C-alpha cells in the first residue's frame, strides 16, 4: 500500500511511511483496547458461569455486552488519586510503562500472513523482550506508590517474572529451533496443512513443551494461580493498591493485552497460528493456494485470522478458567515451581527435541499421508515447495513469501 501511494500518487515517501506507521499503531491499539473490553466482559461471563451465576445481564441487553464500556466510563470519571508521599512522576508514568510494553509487543505479532504491524525477522525475540518490559511498570508502580503493600507486590512481581522468563524463553526456543527462523509469520506458515503439522504434535517433547510454555506464560503475565503481585487476600491489591480511575484501568488493559499476547504467541508457536486443523483453503483453491492474490488472498487471510483469534481466545479462556478454579500459590512455591520444575523440564524438552531432530525420527506431519499437493499449502502459506518434514533447518529460500511480497508488505498492516 505504501508502495502504491508512493509510485501511483507520488506522495512524499517519509510521509507515507509515517502515515502507515500511525495506521498500524492505531489498528494495534484498537486490537488491544477492543480486546481488553471483550476479555473483561468475557472474564465476567466466564467467572459467572463457573460460579453458578449469570454475570452481567443488564447493561447493553441480555448478555451485558456494554458492561465493560460502562465500567470504562466509571473509571474515566473517577478521581485520579495520588497518595501523599508518592513519587509523583513515577507514579503517573508507571501505568503507561506497563501498557506500552504490552502494546509494543503487539507490533510484531502477525494475525495472518502479512497482517502484521511490523514484519521483522526476529519477531519472537522482539515480542518476548518487549513484553518483559511490563515488569518495569509494575516495579515503578509499587515503588512510587509509597505504600508497603504495593512494594511487596512489585517485589514479588519482579522476582516472579524474572524467574519465569528463563523457562519461558527455553520453551519458545524449541519451536524456533524446529522452524529455523525467528520470524513469526514464517513459523506460522511452516505449520500449514493438517493439524498434525502443528508443532504441538511435532513430537512428544513439543507436546509437553506447550504445557510448560502455557504454565510459564500464566506466571509471566501474572494470572492465577501465579497472581501474587496483586494477591488481594494478602496484599490488598498488590502493586495497584493506590491506583484509581483511568491509571488503574491501564494496568488492566496491559494485563489483558499480555494475556492475549502470550496465548497468541503460543498458538503461533505450537498450534499452527492462523492455519486451521484441516487444509480447507487448499481444497477450495487447490493448486493456487500458495499463490493467492487480491480478493482470494484477503478471504484466505480472513479465514486464517478467525482461526488464529479463536485459538488465542481459547487460550485466554483457559486462563480465566484456571483463575476461577485454583487457589493461589505462595511466593516461595511459585519460585520453586519455576526453578525446580519448569526450567529443568523445559531444558530436558529442549535436549529431547534436538535429539529427535538429529535422529531424524518421524514427526507429527508424517502421520497423515500427503495425499494432496495442496494440503501442505494453506491460505497464507505462500511457499513455493512443501517443507521437507525431516528438515531440522529449512533454508531461507524454502519460504517463498519473502521473495514475492515481503518487501512490499513490510511496515504494513493490511492490504
Amino acid at each position, binding site marked *: 500500500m505504501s508502495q502504491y501511494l508512493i509510485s501511483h500518487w507520488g506522495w512524499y515517501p517519509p510521509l507515507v511511511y509515517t502515515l502507515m506507521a500511525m495506521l498500524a499503531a492505531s489498528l494495534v491499539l484498537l486490537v488491544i483496547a477492543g480486546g481488553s473490553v471483550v476479555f473483561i466482559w468475557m472474564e465476567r461471563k466466564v467467572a459467572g458461569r463457573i460460579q453458578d451465576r449469570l454475570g452481567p445481564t443488564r447493561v447493553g441487553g441480555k448478555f451485558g455486552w456494554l458492561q465493560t464500556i460502562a465500567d470504562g466510563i466509571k473509571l474515566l470519571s473517577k478521581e485520579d488519586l495520588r497518595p501523599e508521599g508518592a513519587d509523583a512522576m513515577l507514579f503517573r508514568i508507571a501505568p503507561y510503562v506497563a501498557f506500552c510494553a504490552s502494546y509494543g509487543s503487539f507490533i510484531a505479532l502477525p494475525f495472518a500472513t502479512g497482517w502484521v504491524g511490523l514484519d521483522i525477522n526476529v519477531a519472537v525475540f522482539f515480542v518476548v523482550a518487549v513484553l518483559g518490559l511490563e515488569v518495569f511498570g509494575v516495579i515503578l508502580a509499587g515503588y512510587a506508590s509509597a505504600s508497603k503493600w504495593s512494594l511487596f507486590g512489585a517485589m514479588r512481581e519482579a522476582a516472579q517474572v524474572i524467574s519465569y522468563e528463563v523457562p519461558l524463553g527455553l520453551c519458545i526456543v524449541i519451536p524456533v529451533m524446529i522452524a529455523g527462523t525467528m520470524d513469526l509469520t514464517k513459523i506460522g506458515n511452516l505449520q500449514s496443512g493438517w493439524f498434525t503439522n502443528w508443532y504441538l504434535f511435532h513430537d512428544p517433547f513439543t507436546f509437553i513443551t506447550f504445557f510448560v510454555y502455557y504454565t510459564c506464560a500464566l506466571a509471566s503475565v501474572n494470572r492465577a*494461580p501465579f497472581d501474587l503481585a496483586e494477591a488481594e487476600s494478602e496484599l490488598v491489591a498488590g502493586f495497584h493498591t493506590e491506583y484509581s480511575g483511568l491509571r488503574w484501568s491501564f494496568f488492566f488493559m496491559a494485563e489483558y493485552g499480555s494475556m492475549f499476547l502470550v496465548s497468541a504467541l503460543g498458538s503461533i508457536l505450537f498450534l499452527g497460528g492462523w492455519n486451521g486443523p484441516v487444509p480447507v483453503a487448499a481444497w477450495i483453491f487447490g493448486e493456487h493456494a500458495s499463490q493467492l492474490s487480491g480478493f482470494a488472498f484477503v478471504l484466505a487471510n480472513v479465514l486464517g485470522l478467525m482461526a488464529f483469534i479463536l485459538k488465542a481466545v481459547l487460550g485466554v479462556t483457559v486462563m480465566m478458567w484456571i483463575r476461577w478454579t*485454583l487457589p493461589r500459590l*505462595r*511466593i516461595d*512455591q511459585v519460585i520453586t515451581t519455576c526453578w525446580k520444575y519448569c526450567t529443568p523440564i523445559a531444558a530436558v524438552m529442549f535436549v529431547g527435541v534436538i535429539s529427535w531432530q538429529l535422529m531424524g525420527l518421524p514427526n507429527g506431519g508424517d502421520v497423515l499421508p500427503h495425499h494432496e499437493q495442496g494440503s501442505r499449502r494453506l491460505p497464507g502459506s505462500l511457499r513455493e515447495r512443501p517443507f521437507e518434514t525431516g528438515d531440522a533447518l529449512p533454508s531461507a529460500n524454502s519460504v517463498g513469501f519473502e521473495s514475492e511480497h515481503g518487501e512490499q508488505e513490510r511496515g504494513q498492516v493490511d492490504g
Partner: protein
Amino acid sequence: MSTTEEKSSENKVVEFDVRTDEMLVNMGPQHPSTHGVLRLVLRTDGEVVSEVTPHLGYLHRCAEKIGENLTPRQWIPYTDRMDYLAGMSMNLGWSLCVEKLMNLHVPEKARHLRVIIAEMQRIASHLVGMGAYGLDLGSFSPFLYAFRERERILDLFEEACGARLTYSYLTVGGATADLPTGWLQKCEAFLDQFLPVIDEYHALLTTNSIFIKRCAGIGVMSAEMATSYGCSGPVLRGSGVDLDLRRDGEEWYTNMYDGYAFEVIVEKDGHYPNDHVYPGVPPEAVLGDCWHRFYVRMLEVRQAIDLVRQAIDRYSAATDSYGEPVKLNEKLPKGEAYLETEAPRGQMGFYVVSDGSAIPYRARARSSCFCNLSVTSELCRNTLIADIPAIVGSLDIVMGEIDR
C-alpha cells in the same frame, strides 16, 4: 534485604535513610482477608513475618452492658449480632443459660427443634468458613458455591422466623414460633441435594494440590498449645483434642443431644470418623495444621446433616409444644448461671447474674473466637506473609463475637 552487616561506614547515611532490615505493616482493619475488622500489625523482613500482633476492638458495641439493661429475651437480638454467621447458636447459648438459671425445662419438641436449627446453623456457618478460607487462599469459586448452599439454609430460616441473618428465633423457653408446615420436607430436600455437593468442595479445595501445599504443615498447633490457649471448636479438634461440648459439656446442654448418635470429629490414628467417603488425610498434613482445622469443619458439616435428619424424625414424632417463650419481663430467680455451648466456632459461654428482677444484674459472654485468635501471634511467627491469611482464615474468626 538484610545487608546491614555488609554496609560500610560511608553507607551509614543511606542506612539511616532507607531501613532495609524490618518493616512494620498494618494488615487491617480494612484489609480484605482479615474477616471483618481485625487489625494485625506485622513485623516483616521482606516476605518473612517475624511478629504478629492482633489488635481488637473495632467492632465493640457494648453488647454486654446493654444486656444489663434489658430482660433476657430482649437481649436475644443482641446475641444475634455477636457471631453474626451463627446467630441461631448465639440465641441458643443465651437461652439455655437463662433457662438454666430459671431451671426451666423446654418441651421435647422444642429440644429437637433446637437441634435442627442449631445444626443447620452449623452447616451454614461452616460453609462460610470453608468458602472464605478458599477466598483467603485465592480460590474464588468455592466461596460462591458455599454461598449458594447457604442461601438455601437462609431461605429456610427466613421461612421459620422471618429473618435471614439476625434471627432471634430460639429464645428463652423454646422458640418464638413453631416451624411452618412443609418446612421439614423442604429441609430434607435441601439435605438430599446438599450431601452430594460436599464432594465438589473436597474436589476444589481439600484434595487440590495447591490447596494442600498452601495449608498442610502451616500453622501447626500442638494439642498442648491449643488447650493452654483455651482454643475450642474445630480449632481445638483440629489439633487432635477429643473435646466436643455436645458430648462432654454440662448436662444442661448435653441433654439437648440426648439419644442422638454422633461421633466427635477428631483424628484417631490418622483417620477421622466417617472419613471413608471423603478423601483421606494427605501425607503432607501434620496434625494441628491449617488443613486439619479445615477438614474438621468439612466433616462436621457432614455430621450435622446426619444430626438434622435424626432431629427431623424425632421432631415429627414429638407431640408436645414447640416451647412457648417466657414472658418478656419474666422475673429471674436470684442467683447466677454459666453455660457453655458448642457453637460452630467453639465453646460459646454465657454468664448471667440475677438479683431477682427481670433484668439481669450481669450478662457476659465468653467468646470462642477470642481464644482461638489469641494463638495467632504464636502461629504466625516466622511465616511468610501469604501464610498469615491462611492461618487466620483457618481459625475462622468472627470479629463480632470477639469484640461484642
